[in-house]
């Protein structure tokens, strides 16, 4: 127990406070929750792009299996019906994000969330590159409303969230209406001055930036912040490091993916969306611009949940004689198929388990590298389509590549690899039965 106790002390002293800070820091929460809330919309867009090419394109994988094009010769014409879906989802992600970040900030600072979100959106367009007039009609470039404007959206959302919430708290800036005025009316008057101040501040700020950097704020932020961070993220080293950090947090019983979500999204969101747009334009994930994204982790190193514990469960069913291991295995297999693995992590437990933590961290890292090698050598296309994280195991690789059969097989190979790595550790933990905190008072099982 000495090693474990020391381990636990490290966790409680060092890691838990860091995780607590990261997760109670309102700017980080605002960003993380904004991406969580926007996710269903990007996901819907992604699924429709996938279906568009899987079913409606003559060489789509479902179309081929079912001979759809023999049956309906004009099926491909339907693609144009669904292609505008991206215009309403990923292509305007920055607009969603700026609204949501400002709104989330207002929630945590107890200000008017809806009006704060709208003020954020308004501000985003105050500093947006101005209209261009062509043939008497005015046009706004779409360049910055999608993925490329993401960082401006984040910054504007945070700054407006802070300013709005603080200013609207000031009694001097409130216009209070008599009680007879309807609440909806007095609500908007209450925050009128804060909104005017923010508008003026950003308008002046925009003018100053344009004077020094005529291409505008969006271009500036993109060049100085977003592009470097994107390049930092989209390489195999960062991917492996993030993967290890995420799983290391789980070893201490802290939700890893959730803790690093804000950082991860900032690094990968643009690359993901560019891959999806590429797939939508070309009808394939082959040669997508960013072969390395976090999607590799989900597609090849996350079966059963963090630590690829589906492999652990299979290993347990194969070799474990410990009754509590098999009990937890039975309890965990159904949720595990949908990548939910808290029963394994806390029940087995993996948390602070001196034997199992090594494969728990090693297995995903190995599988991320396998996925990376397969994509970079051209064995399979990039994982360009977003797939919900509760999709069972190898199907994420299959659907994420747009229905590539080799990816599906590779998914099963990764699962086998994880099982093989887990096997000796399960055998070892059987031999060391009694270690861990699965003893004494908690002996009766309810599973």
């Amino acid at each position, binding site marked *: 127990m000495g090693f474990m106790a020391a381990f636990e002390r490290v966790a409680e002293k060092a890691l838990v406070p860091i995780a*607590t800070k990261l997760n*109670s820091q309102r700017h980080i929460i605002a960003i993380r929750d904004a991406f969580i809330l926007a996710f269903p919309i990007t996901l819907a867009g992604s699924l429709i792009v996938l279906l568009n090419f899987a079913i409606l394109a003559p060489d789509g994988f479902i179309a081929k299996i079912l001979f759809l094009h023999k049956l309906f010769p004009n099926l491909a014409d339907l693609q144009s019906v669904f292609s505008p879906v991206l215009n309403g989802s990923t292509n305007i992600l920055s607009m969603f994000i700026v609204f949501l970040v400002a709104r989330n900030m207002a929630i945590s600072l107890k200000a008017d969330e809806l009006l704060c979100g709208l003020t954020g959106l308004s501000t985003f367009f105050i500093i947006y590159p101005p209209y261009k007039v062509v043939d008497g009609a005015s046009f706004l470039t779409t360049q910055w409303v999608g993925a490329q404007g993401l960082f401006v959206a984040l910054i504007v959302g945070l700054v407006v969230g802070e300013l709005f919430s603080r200013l609207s708290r000031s009694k001097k800036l409130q216009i209070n209406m008599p009680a007879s005025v309807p609440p909806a009316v007095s609500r908007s008057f209450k925050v009128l001055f804060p909104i005017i101040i923010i508008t003026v501040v950003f308008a002046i700020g925009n003018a100053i930036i344009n004077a020094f950097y005529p291409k505008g704020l969006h271009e500036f932020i993109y060049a100085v912040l977003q592009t470097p961070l994107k390049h930092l993220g989209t390489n195999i080293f960062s991917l492996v490091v993030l993967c290890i950090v995420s799983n290391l947090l789980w070893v201490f019983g802290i939700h890893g993916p959730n803790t690093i979500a804000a950082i991860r999204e900032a690094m990968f969101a643009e690359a993901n969306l560019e891959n999806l747009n590429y797939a939508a334009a070309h009808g394939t994930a082959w040669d997508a611009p960013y072969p390395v994204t976090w999607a590799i982790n989900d597609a090849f190193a996350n079966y059963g949940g963090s630590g690829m514990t589906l492999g652990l469960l299979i290993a347990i069913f194969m070799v474990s004689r410990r009754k509590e291991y098999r009990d937890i295995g039975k309890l965990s297999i159904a*949720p595990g198929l*949908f990548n939910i693995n*808290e029963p394994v992590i*806390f029940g087995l437990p993996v948390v602070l388990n001196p034997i199992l933590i090594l494969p728990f961290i090693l297995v995903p890292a190995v599988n991320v590298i396998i996925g990376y090698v397969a994509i970079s050598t051209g064995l399979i296309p990039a994982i360009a389509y977003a797939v919900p994280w509760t999709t069972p195991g190898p199907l994420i690789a299959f659907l994420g590549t747009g229905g590539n059969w080799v990816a599906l097989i590779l998914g099963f190979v990764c699962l086998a690899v994880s099982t093989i790595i887990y096997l000796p550790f399960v055998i070892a933990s059987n031999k060391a039965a009694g270690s861990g905190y*699965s003893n004494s008072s908690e002996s009766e099982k*309810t599973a």
Partner: protein
Amino acid sequence: MKKLLLVCAAGMSTSLLVNKMKDAAKEKGLELEIFALPVSECESVASEVDAVLLGPQVRYQKPQVDAIIEGRVPVEVIDMRDYGTMNGKAVLEKALNLIG
């Protein structure tokens, strides 16, 4: 009717535990409403619950939940072992002690 809220990252694994707790409550003949949410959505129901239980994997978010609840009702982290074994009975017992 008393309301118990369980929260975790996405409200997925807690919803597994919720089902086990509901079974345990039925066995005891108790009238209880038990439900699960992502911790980020805790605020929306904060005023109507009688206790909030956090999954151990989001125990570091307790300060936030505390800030939302403002001491009005108990906020506790579920024991890791009970959580992992999905021991609905034990978690229910502890929750009942909390709301008294």
